[in-house]
């Protein structure tokens, strides 16, 4: 008679540890599921907008006023790039931008275009709005240009803009751009960087 009783006692004694194990495993699984990916603590604060809609983040206010594409690019000073030799495409973003709080170190220092899993930085060639000074409360206008492979104008791209070159912990403005809808012109001239008129 004593053997089954002892076995039963052993079995009941194991309920505690096993249920604790299950509870801990389940808790670990839940934690692992709800935890944000690595690097989330330094992720940017994203403000989403669309073409023609004004958006603000921290010290930056901007409106993308137009998107154009061309085989050849010319800046107001006469510098030119592209054409038949390069086989590439230029995507040009026209925008108005101003600083909100401080003009100190305020320039458009971050401009990236993501198409699928490829990310392109705004060109530093020619005279563009890239890294140009912003003025507190007074918008200035200009163009950013991205040099893309010839086959890149497909699907939807994401444009991300901000003031600091390092956007970790900082605000960025993000907007989608439907690349397929943009007619590719033979040649376009960049807007001159200057005060926003009209």
């Amino acid at each position: 008679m004593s053997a089954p009783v002892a076995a039963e006692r052993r079995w009941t004694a194991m309920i505690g540890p096993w249920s604790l194990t299950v509870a801990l495993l389940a808790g670990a699984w839940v934690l692992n599921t709800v935890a944000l990916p690595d690097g989330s603590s330094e992720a940017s604060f994203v403000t989403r907008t669309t073409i023609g809609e004004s958006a603000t983040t921290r010290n930056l206010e901007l409106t993308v006023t137009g998107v154009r594409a061309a085989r050849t690019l010319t800046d107001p000073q006469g510098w030119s790039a592209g054409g038949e030799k390069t086989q590439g495409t230029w995507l040009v973003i026209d925008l108005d931008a101003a600083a909100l709080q401080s003009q100190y170190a305020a320039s458009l220092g971050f401009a990236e275009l993501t198409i699928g899993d490829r990310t392109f930085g705004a060109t530093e060639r020619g005279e563009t709005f890239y890294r140009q000074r912003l003025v507190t409360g007074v918008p200035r206008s200009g163009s950013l240009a991205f040099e893309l492979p010839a086959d890149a104008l497909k699907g939807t791209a994401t444009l991300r803009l901000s003031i600091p070159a390092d956007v970790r912990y900082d605000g960025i403005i993000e907007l989608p751009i439907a690349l397929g809808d943009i007619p590719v012109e033979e040649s376009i001239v960049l807007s001159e960087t200057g005060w926003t008129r009209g």
Partner: protein
Amino acid sequence: MTIPTPPQHREPAPRAAVERAGWWRTNRLPLLALLVLVPVVGIGVGWNEWHYAYGYGARKVNAVVAADKGTIELNGATWGPVRSGEIPDASDIDIPEGTRLLAAVIPVEPDAAAIACAAPVLVQQSTGREWTPMRSEIGIPFNDEEPSTCISDLADEDDPNSAMPYSMVVAFVVPDDVEGPFWVEVDPVGDDRFVRFSIDP
């Protein structure tokens, strides 16, 4: 030899009461330590964070404010008195509609050696919004006679202690609806304070 009378046991106090009074008494040292350590930790952590942000002179917090039309002695130079005003609409200056151009002239008289400084900043006193000087952006070419930051012209080239007096001339493009008074701030290199003038052009 007699057997000593055994000590008389007093009736013990109710156990709960002893525990209540006794706990505070037994732990009075840790409690005192807590009373000291909690504020010390708070102040220590706060100071450390503050020092990290402001302690290395990158963002100065100690302003030396000039009296109205007054001067300031700071960091081996005399600053001011500042003159300021709104530049009336000039056709050769490129500023957009809805803005005004505020200019400030800040005389600098070094005592001996030249002093370096960052370009002056215009700050709206009510909001803290900041403007930095504009020049090429408004179509005014660079001019030796109107430096927008500290310069080091020497009266005698061989004597570094013969810095000449000069005036910084700066202009700010400010929206029409931004109202004064403003601060004009100059931050000299080598001092943990900065110069501040109040203007209301």
